[in-house]
Every structure is written in C-alpha cells, then in structure tokens.
C-alpha cells in the first residue's frame, strides 16, 4: 500500500487504483502550483521560438533515427569513451548495473559517494544497494536531498520533491538534521548547501547519470541548475556515470537541437544554468576532474522495447517532464501513484514496457486519453497511441506478452460487443432502460446505481436514460409519409 516508501525499488505490482483512493490532500495542491508555474514559463519560451514545431519535428527524427541505429552508435560511444581514457561497462539488467558500480567503489575503498540527480540510478535502486554494501550515497540536488531525507523517491522527473511545500521541508529539516529551519526556500537551500559542502569535499566517488551521450566524441552531457553536478563530477577522484542506452545522440548538431528543446520544455528556461560536457577523465595533473571515469551503459529492458515498432517511440523521451506538468491525472494524484521512479504519462507507458504488464497493468489505463501530453512533447512521442497499444497488450496480449487482465473483463467485453453490434438487441435495451430505471429515478436523474455503475454514481449522479429519439423520428416519418 505504501508506494512512496518503496519507490526506488523495482516494484512487483503497481496499485495505481488503490493509491488513487487515498492521495494525501496536500499533494495535488503542491503539484499543481509548481507545474502550472513551469507551464506558463514554458509557454512564454515556446512563443518566442518561431521554429518550435520545426525543432520538434527535427528532434523526433533525430531520436527515432538514433534508436533505429542504436547498435552502431553505442559501439561508437564505447570507442570514443575508451579513446578518451574512460572505461565502459555494459549492464543488461538493473542488478548487473548495481554490481558493476559497487565493484568499482570497493576497488577504490569508497566510503561515501556524492550523487548528481539521476533517473537511471533511481531506476536501478542504486542508493539502497550502495548502502547495503556499506557505502553511504548522498544526493546533492536539493530536491533529491529532500526526498532522501524523507526516505522516499522522486515524484516528478525534474522536480523530485515537487509534492512537498516549504513548510513540510522545514519540518523535515528540523527532524532529520536537528537544525532550526524556517519555511523560507532561501534559508532551507542554505542549510542544505552547508550540509552538502562537507560531503562534496570528503566523498571518494561521484555518481551521475546523463541527459545525453554524444556518440561522435563520447561526451557525457549533464544539464542542471544547482552547480552540484559539477561538484560531484570534478571533486572526487572517481566518477561513475550510469546511463540508459536510450540517451545516445549521434553528434553535436543533434545535441544542439535537443538542448534547444529540453530546458524550454522542462522549466521554461532558454538553457539551464549549467550544461556540463564531460569527455573521459582528466588528461593530466593540474587539470580539473577525476582520475578515473567509468560509464555504465544500462539496458534494463530497453533493447526489448526497441523490438516493438509502436512501443519503442517511448525511448525517444528526453525526460523534460513536460507531459507530467500538463497531465490532469498526474496533477490530481502526484507521482507516487505511478509506483516507480518515473511517473505521469511517460511513466504510464515506460513502466509497463520495462516491468511487464503483469506488474504495471493498471498504468496504461491511468489516463483519460485527453492527449495534452502528446501536444507538448518536445520529441513528439504519441503517448495516447502507445497507451492504447499497451491497453491492448494488457487485455488481449500480443507477440511480446500474454494478457494480464482478468477473464471476467473479457466476458464483459464480449457481452458488450453482442449488445452493441446487434441492432435489434441494442434497440431493445434502449427501450427497456427507461422503464427499468423507474424505481431509481429522482427528478430526471439517477443518484445511486447498483455495482458496477455505482463507480459512476458515487462521484456524480447519472442523467436518466431517455432513449426516445427513434420513436420521435418514426412518428415524424409516418406523418411525412402520409402527407
């Protein structure tokens, strides 16, 4: 039931429906305030970019092209990173990635690690694994710092603690850090900064993800706003980056297109405060940066998703979070409803493909199919189309997975088809419903209906059935025929 606490672990079942019945009341308010602010600044940035639609089309082409030729681009990444003096590791599954990172850390006697905000390490539950191995990992992004203190996971792709108000953060700081903390964002940031400064200086390992990985030069690209990314990747002598294989872009021209879209879509900035380009470790003494650089390329189901011509567009995602900001479902339930590190519309299509529909079968249905996400997606992921594709996978199964829906639903659907594809049966129902409803009808409405229709009436009454159009039409035609 408590999805929040287990958000960083690989879930075995995601109960979106259960969670949605008891969303903490403070979450939607906090989420709506923050996401509305992002959306309005985004709108201003988009309006000043005359070639926005052109950029989106180009980005879609670049991302799809890269996915279709991912094997050769990944080999190029490996060659270039190695050439720059880095080490490349391939991780098929989350567990393999965790082991690789822990082994590297142990070889270097790492006691503490500092982390740049990274979705890939949330995906593999790295913090918990490091802790179990006796290594303390400290999150250094302010949002991640907060949720790590709270013992939960990110509830938004780019704003991990978006669900918390400043008062809640202040209380958390008082409890966990034992300091006097006023509900003032600047003061709270100063407390976090003071706590983190010492950790930056003592950590033996920096861990990051990447926003992009440029195949042309083997360059890791990290986009951030707090400067913590540079501290983590330059101060410790060892830098380990865990990066999903979908993060690759062919070259710097492609990167330029995507960087033009990313910050504008995410926070409504033209460019984030810091865009760091890291190519291998430092080359000589005196230069900034770590002595050793390791790149862990994470598959974790992505190459399987690539086999599916419809589903694979999911992997075009550049993690801007804009689909969350615009989604009325996400804004009503918050990120924890989606049960894993990635939430909102992109989570609803990503998680079922990576975890399988048995574990995440509720997520493709967690959408009203309003289409707002597809309208804003900077790389034009057809999210509603993929949701429908995955709904079919859940109820009918396909060449990738067996169905996961209860058989009773199938029976219901067959009966529905019988009634709706048989005109006389449908017409009979239309005539009977207004009669059958009489005992339940109040003032032209049906305030309470028996299950399963009570799922509608517990929220609002249903208008009374009034199927009399055909009689009206029939009478009218009769009169006309006589004239």
């Amino acid at each position, binding site marked *: 039931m408590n999805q929040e606490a287990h958000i960083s672990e690989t879930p075995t079942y995601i109960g979106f429906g259960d969670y949605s*019945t008891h969303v903490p009341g403070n979450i939607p308010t906090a989420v709506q305030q923050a996401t509305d602010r992002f959306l309005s600044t985004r709108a201003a940035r988009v309006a000043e970019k005359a070639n926005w639609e052109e950029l989106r089309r180009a980005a879609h082409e670049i991302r799809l092209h890269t996915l279709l030729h991912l094997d050769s681009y990944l080999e190029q990444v490996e060659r270039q990173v190695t050439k720059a003096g880095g080490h490349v590791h391939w991780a098929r599954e989350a567990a393999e990635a965790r082991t690789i990172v822990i082994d590297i850390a142990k070889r270097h006697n790492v006691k503490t690690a500092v982390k740049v905000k990274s979705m890939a390490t949330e995906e593999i539950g790295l913090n918990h694994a490091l802790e179990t191995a006796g290594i303390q990992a400290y999150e250094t992004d302010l949002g991640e710092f907060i949720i790590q203190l709270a013992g939960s996971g990110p509830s938004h792709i780019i704003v991990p603690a978006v669900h918390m108000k400043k008062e809640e953060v202040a209380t958390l700081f008082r409890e966990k850090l034992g300091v006097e903390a006023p509900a003032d964002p600047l003061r709270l940031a100063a407390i976090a900064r003071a706590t983190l400064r010492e950790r930056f200086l003592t950590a033996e390992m920096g861990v990051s993800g990447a926003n992009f990985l440029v195949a042309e030069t083997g360059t890791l690209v990290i986009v951030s706003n707090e400067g913590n990314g540079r501290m983590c990747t330059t101060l410790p002598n060892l830098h380990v980056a865990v990066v999903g294989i979908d993060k690759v872009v062919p070259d710097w021209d492609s990167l330029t297109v995507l960087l033009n879209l990313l910050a504008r879509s995410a926070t409504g900035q033209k460019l984030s405060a810091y865009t760091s380009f890291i190519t291998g470790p430092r080359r000589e003494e005196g230069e900034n940066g770590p002595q050793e650089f390791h790149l862990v390329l994470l598959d974790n189901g992505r190459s399987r998703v690539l086999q599916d011509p419809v589903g694979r567009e999911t992997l075009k995602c550049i993690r801007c979070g804009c689909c969350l900001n615009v989604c009325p479902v996400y804004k009503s339930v918050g990120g924890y409803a989606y049960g894993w590190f990635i939430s909102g519309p992109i989570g609803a299509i990503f998680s079922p493909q990576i975890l399988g529909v048995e574990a995440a079968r509720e997520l493709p249905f967690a959408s009203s199919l309003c289409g707002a996400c597809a309208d804003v997606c900077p790389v034009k992921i057809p999210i509603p189309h993929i949701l429908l594709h995955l709904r079919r996978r859940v109820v*009918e199964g396909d060449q990738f997975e067996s169905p996961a829906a209860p058989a009773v639903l199938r029976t219901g659907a067959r009966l529905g*088809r019988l009634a*709706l*594809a048989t*005109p006389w049966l449908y017409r009979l129902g*239309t005539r009977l419903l207004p009669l059958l409803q009489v005992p339940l009808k109040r003032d032209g*409405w049906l305030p309470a209906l028996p299950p*399963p229709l009570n799922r509608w009436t517990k929220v609002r009454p249903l*208008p009374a059935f009034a199927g009399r159009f055909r009689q009206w039409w029939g009478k009218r035609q009769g009169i006309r025929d006589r004239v």
Partner: protein
Amino acid sequence: MPIKAQLFITCLAEQFYPQVLVQMVDLLERLGVNVEFPPEQTCCGQPMFNSGFQSEARGIATQWLRAFSRSEAAIVSPSGSCVDMVRHHYPAMFPEGTPEHELARELAGRTFEFSEFLVHSLKVTDVGAYFPHKVTYHASCHLLRGLGLREEAKQLLSAVHDLELVPLADEETCCGFGGMFSVIYPEVSRAMMEAKVRNIMASGAGAVVACDAGCLMNIAGGLRKVGSQVRALHLIEVLAAQGGAS
C-alpha cells in the same frame, strides 16, 4: 441539389440527450440540409477500443460501417469523440487492402462533427439563434486535439444574438470523463471533474457549453452534485434557441 446528411446520433446522445438530437434535426433542416437517419446504427465501439478490446471494437465498427454505407450522404454527429474514433481509428482497425479498410477510409472522409459541418461544409456561423445569457465554453479533448477544432464552436457561439461568451480558466483541460476511465478510476475522475466545475462556477456564466455528451454528463452531474444552478448544454441546444425562451 440539396445537401444530404446522415445523422450519426451516437449511443450516449441517444440514451441521455434525445432533445439535442431533435434540435439537431431541426437546425440542419432549417439550414436546408436533407436529413437521413440510418436505423441500423448503434455505437462506434469506442468503449471497447479504448479499453484495449480491439477485436470486440472491430465487430462493432463493422456494424457501424454497414449502417452508414447504404447512403452516399455526409455523416454528421453531435460528438467530437465519436467522429475522432471513426476518422482516425477505424481505418487502422482493418488491414490495408481489405474491403473493410477501404470502406472505413471512404466513410471516415465524409464523417463530420456538427460544428465542423456547419462552419466548414455549410459555411455558416450565424444560425439566427437568440440566447440572452452569459455562457462559457469547455473544449472537449477529442474535438480539440483529435479533430483540431479549436475555434469552430466558439465562432458559432459568438454569432448567437445577445449571448455573452465569457472565458473559462483551463478551458482546454480534460473534465475527467474519459469514457471507461471515469469508472475505472472514479476518484481521479472526481478530482478532475471538481476542478472543472470550480472553474465553471468561477467564470460567472449561467451555462457551460460543450460538444460531447460524455463531457456533458460528467459536468452536469458534477454541477448538480454541488447544487449549482449553472446549466451544462450541448452547443446544439444553444444554437436551437429562438426568441426569449431558453
């Protein structure tokens, strides 16, 4: 030759909004359209399609194609969502090269949503309606994003005599209906509906207008639940209003 139109009444409008359908016939006839009603029609199959039951949806779609293929006339519907289903999903439900696919494509090409049919096919925006009230407009998702009809309904409303069209905050945000979504996740649907109802009540309008029976059932029910006097009306009900009566 007079323009002909087949009424595609949709299952929800048939079950819950017969007066809208009667007014739709009156309006079209007043505009000189020769109205036909194919009696074999039932539902477009969207509830099955959106729930993932593709083969069940295909069975219902086949019935729909049969019902509407008997006439050459344009097909006009008071629901953006159902038109989106026919126009954008029907052709893909049948393999290319099959007669069903060809028929689906042909019928998809002459199926129109009501406001679209008036503004683009008949080239009418002023239907001579009179509605002396303050009205706001909710943009139904599939009408707006599925069919790309952002302005048509508002053009028609703006031409109604003595009608004052006031803005609705988050006009383009989903009301929380979403078909089966509203019964699969009622609590989420409730939160979205309540946000919509709050915005409608804050707009100061006496009526909210939409172009889809699904949104109207949801919004009207939500307004009733909180005891609001604001009415939820189909665009057709406003366009059909003549004289002082409303």
